[in-house]
């Protein structure tokens, strides 16, 4: 029975299924926040999640990966993030209900009881800080720092993994050129985060939890954080094994696992498969479809949106902010889109110019 479950889990585990199901669940969750945060749904889900984890611990391989000292925080991160998301959405749902009834949010009522920051808040914070320190000490005593044998430059560990917080980016290396995954995307993340307060200047929902008032932004944020950050980190931590191959959670890491890599560039698809005329010699002709596609992706949707369902938003934000927001949003979509293209069509690069070491 247990082994059947393990086999089943292993067999359905692939980047595409996890990503698709994760995204689907997120959409479902945000579509029915009230139902999902009720104890009748969230309770069983929590039990299911913890149950799966406990069940997994019976498996030596799963146990080994999960209990490796540097992986423990990621396990904690998963559960903590789930809890906090649930907590925030539940509060938001309550507040949304109160707002719909014309009442003020809960935070407003609470904020009427005022105390001085010093000493009351500081004191509480201080105590919390103490507990935090205690927790860290106990943790470090119980789980020793995962120092390994002295490094040997002639042997690179297999798999070679980045620190956990970069594992999401390392996962992107599978789908993108280093300069995109390692330079462009991180830069955009930082720039995007910096730009957020200037893009979204609405005062709604500040100081209290609310979902309905800021549905687009919250959804965007949760998708980015959950799917493009945490999920990818989990891939990198738990599911990527030797040679960066993908392994199910109960699958032993076999160094010799071989998976076919038959990725093809967009130009190959178009010129060889569809047109059957062979690759053009000049790179700009060869990669023209790619450039065209990228152009369409980045220019057409914002234009259409501006004319149709985003007309109001354009008016509110003004052209510059609209363009920036649209670009960031499209980039956000571009990442999973490219991943899907890889999974679905084995598409290697949209634009591949080895002449300039430029690949997209």
């Amino acid at each position, binding site marked *: 029975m247990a082994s059947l479950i393990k086999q089943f889990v292993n067999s359905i585990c692939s980047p595409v299924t996890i990503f698709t199901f994760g995204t689907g669940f997120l959409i479902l969750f945000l579509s029915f926040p009230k139902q999902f945060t009720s104890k009748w749904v969230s309770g069983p889900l929590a039990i299911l999640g913890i149950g799966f984890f406990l069940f997994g611990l019976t498996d030596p391989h799963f146990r080994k990966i999960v209990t490796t000292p540097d992986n423990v925080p990621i396990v904690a991160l998963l559960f903590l993030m789930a809890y906090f998301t649930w907590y925030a959405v539940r509060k938001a749902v309550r507040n949304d209900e109160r707002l719909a009834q014309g009442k003020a949010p809960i935070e407003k009522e609470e904020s009427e*009881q005022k*105390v001085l920051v010093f000493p*009351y808040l500081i004191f509480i914070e201080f105590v919390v800080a*103490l*507990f935090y320190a205690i927790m860290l*000490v*106990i943790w470090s*005593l119980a789980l020793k720092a995962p120092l390994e044998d002295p*490094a040997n430059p002639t*042997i690179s560990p297999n798999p070679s993994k980045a620190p956990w917080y970069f594992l999401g980016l390392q996962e992107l290396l599978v789908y993108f050129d280093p300069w995109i995954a390692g330079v462009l995307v991180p830069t955009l993340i930082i720039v995007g985060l910096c730009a957020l307060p200037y893009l979204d200047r609405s005062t709604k929902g500040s100081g209290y939890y609310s979902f309905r008032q800021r549905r687009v932004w919250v959804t965007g944020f949760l998708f980015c954080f959950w799917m493009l950050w945490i999920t990818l980190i989990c891939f990198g931590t738990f599911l990527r094994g030797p040679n960066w191959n993908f392994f199910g959670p109960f699958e032993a890491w076999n160094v010799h696992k071989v998976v076919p890599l038959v990725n093809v560039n967009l130009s190959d698809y178009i010129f060889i498969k569809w047109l059957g005329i062979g690759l053009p010699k000049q790179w700009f002709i060869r990669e023209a479809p790619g450039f065209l596609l990228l152009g369409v992706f980045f220019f057409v949707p914002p234009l259409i949106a501006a004319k149709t369902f985003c007309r109001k938003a354009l008016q509110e934000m003004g052209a510059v902010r609209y363009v920036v927001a649209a670009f960031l949003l499209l980039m956000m979509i571009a990442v999973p889109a490219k991943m899907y293209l890889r999974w679905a069509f084995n598409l290697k690069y949209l634009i591949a110019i080895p002449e300039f070491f430029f690949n997209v």
Partner: protein
Amino acid sequence: MPQSPDQLYSVHKTTIWFAVASIALVVTLVLIVFQDHNREWKTWQEEFVELERKKLKENLQAMHSKVDEKRLEDLRKELASAQEEFDRNKSEFEKLEADKTGLNVDLVKASARYEDLKQHYDSYKFFLEEHREQGEDEKAAQFERKFKGVESKLKDAKFKKEQIERKIEEIDARIFSFQSVKRRIEKEMNEFRRDEERLERKLKELEPSLIKDMINAPMVDFVAPTLEIQQVVLEDLHEDFHFAKAQRVDRCTTCHLAVDRAGFEDAPQPFRTHPRLDLFLSADSPHPLEKIGCTVCHGGSGQSLSFTWAAHTPQNKEQRKAWERKYDWHELEKWEAKMLPLQHIEASCAKCHGGVVNIPEAPKLNQGRALAQKYGCFGCHLVKGFENRWRVGPDLRNVRSKLDREWIVRWLQNPKAFRPSTQMPQAFHLENTNSEGDRRRSNAAIEGIATYLLKHSNTVSLESPPIPGSPEAGKKFVEETGCLGCHTMGDTSVNDHGPELVYLGSKVQDNWLYSWLKNPKHYSPETRMPNLRLTDEEAAHMTAYLLEDRNEQFDASVIPQVAADDLDGLAMGFLTRKMRQAEAQDQLRQMELEEKFEFVGEKMILQQGCFGCHTIRGFEEAKQIGTELTKEGQKEVERLDFGFVDIDRTRYDWFRQKLKNPRIFDRGKIKDYHEKLRMPHFGFTDEEAEALTTFLLSLRVEEIPLEMRKQLDLREQEIEAGRLLVSKLNCQGCHTLDGVDGRVRSLFSATLRGGSATSFGGEDVGKEPPVLDGEGAKVEEVWLYHFLRDPETIRPWLKYRMPTFDFTEEETNSLVKYFAYLDEQEISFLREKVKTKAATVAAGRELFTQFKCIQCHQGGETQTITASFLAPDLAMAKDRLKPAWVIEWLKDPQVLQTGTMMPTFFPDATTPLPAILGGNAEQQIKAIRDYLWTYRPEEVTEVKGGSS
């Protein structure tokens, strides 16, 4: 501040939490200190203190039981009486003491006055000299006066002082005489108990105490704890941390506390004494701890202080399990410098001991090296430092004259089926080529190889035996002329240098064998088989005997038919490596059947690397096919393909598995016939595999400073070159030489050595092939040179023959140097001269006659007088022997050669003939030697006549 019931905060509760947090913080602080203080090695050191105390107590007890209580009691009594005597004279003693005190006061006074005057005296002297020099006479005169005045005073003061000193000395002497008896007894008693007291002091030091607990307590233990990390810093050895070199620091002794101390041989680990203190660790051994440390041999992390991190390596699975349980041990995956498992420890010796054939005290490694040579590992695998090795298989360039096609095919199917003891490994029909299709392909390949070999072979002229030989006579000759010095035959397997002499009847024809026995180099110029200078009859008899033995089962084995498809398939496999499918097919179509066989054979020889061991025409320039093994001992484990074989992921497990079953790593893999592993199967025993694994592990290229390596001087290098030649030609198969007992000798004196007598055996070591220990000191280099090139008979009673090896000039010189340097001789190709005087020669002749030397030492022609002529002809002595050696030999032959039949005539340096040369044994010996240097064969009869 309003306090409502649903307040979010409570000062009171916060305070409580604060208290809780404070307590918890204190607890965690204690935990931190505890964990930092609680180290694995401290537990070991504490345990060791207990062990040491136990040992000390035992020693003390043993010592105590040995002390002569009676003597001690006597001494005590003596002491008591001495004390009594002393007490009786106490009043006088006390008076003396009082006098001395008084005199001491006087002495102080006198000394002070003397010192004072001396100061003035020096000062006046200075001024007097100074003023005189300046010409200030008046002042000079003034000081001169003063000076003169003080001079006499000073003299008086000195006299007075010395007088007092003398008095004190007198009193001291008297005081001493009062005490002397007592002191002496006390001293003897102290001596009696000195060792015991030393141990007791040591024991006391080790006793647990509160103070010790305190200085070892956390936070205080930085001052002078009794539990301390022990370390050796090795100045000349480095540890390679890949980024940087660091001085090697071995802290192993922190836990292995008694490793360099005798007396803990039976203690449990980690406290056990090193099993070879004479060789390692002790200060007077060649590898002292302070210079060599631990990790340079054992490997492991010298700086680590925990069991796991020191990179201990278990010897086997059981130990691995036990360690996992006991020490929570795990393998350090990424670190290379793990400890060598103990059974392979000798691999480390090669780090410093390079350029030698055998490393002293490393039998397993030496066995591994010898096996690697014997089985021709260097034929396929390049190993730097072992390039000067010879091919181990027979030369196949004239094979057509020796073997027929059927035999070759049967042999290649499975060599061990013909001769189980053969060194030839099996290359076909092994685990990974055992499927029906592969067997058929292999059969085609074998047929191909046979075709190629026969086609690319010359023929040599062969002689047929002139007479029909008699097998019985042949057996005797085989046993008695020297074949067993290299070959195994029947039950006598003292030597396995050449192939076992079985089943030759199934293999070769009489004309080949006869010609081969007469002169092996005729068929194969490079063979190691020497020429025994057999007569035609001897060779004919031996041929008859050896050909009698047939392997019927082998002769009857079926030669598999090769189907055209299989041959074509195999050929296509080779062809498509170089060309496209269609072209290959074209080419194949153009080939005749025989051509196909030849083609397949050639390619197969190339693929299997047959030319690594055999000389084959067409493969003179072929490259070795195997992996280079120069650095095999440090190859990353990741680069070894373990396939689906469930063994530990370690180098040595892989090596052992590969050696035991070279094709096993193909198990479960889907591979084309041509891609399969091709190392052949040697059928190594576990012991051999272990020795070879040790050898492989020793193949490392490590930077050890030159001064730390064992460096060979020029003579040692010559000796090693000789040793290699000696091992190549198996000199030790017959001769006792260089610490190895001549292997064939055990057959002779079987009764002496506790075995059963053989047909040619006896109890006389003199009938065995000669012992060559000390040969360099014994014989003249020039004689040795000529003897090696063309042996002559020295010991006519020996049936074993010194064969003719057809040494090259270079080889002969190498051997001469080897023998000479082995006995620390200088090489000189001039015979040493002996200056003789007529008188001594006459005395020598008289001694020679009286001692009846001639009774044993007779030349070949005159052997008619007595039965025992078991000694060399002395006419040869002056050409052959070194004069100094003859003297030593005559003094006591047993010293130079244990068990020799030559008796001593001068036991305990005395002579039975006191009348000659004043009865001086040494002069008599010299006289005999001098006589021998004038000795001519003709004298035999003269001497003989004189004696009877």
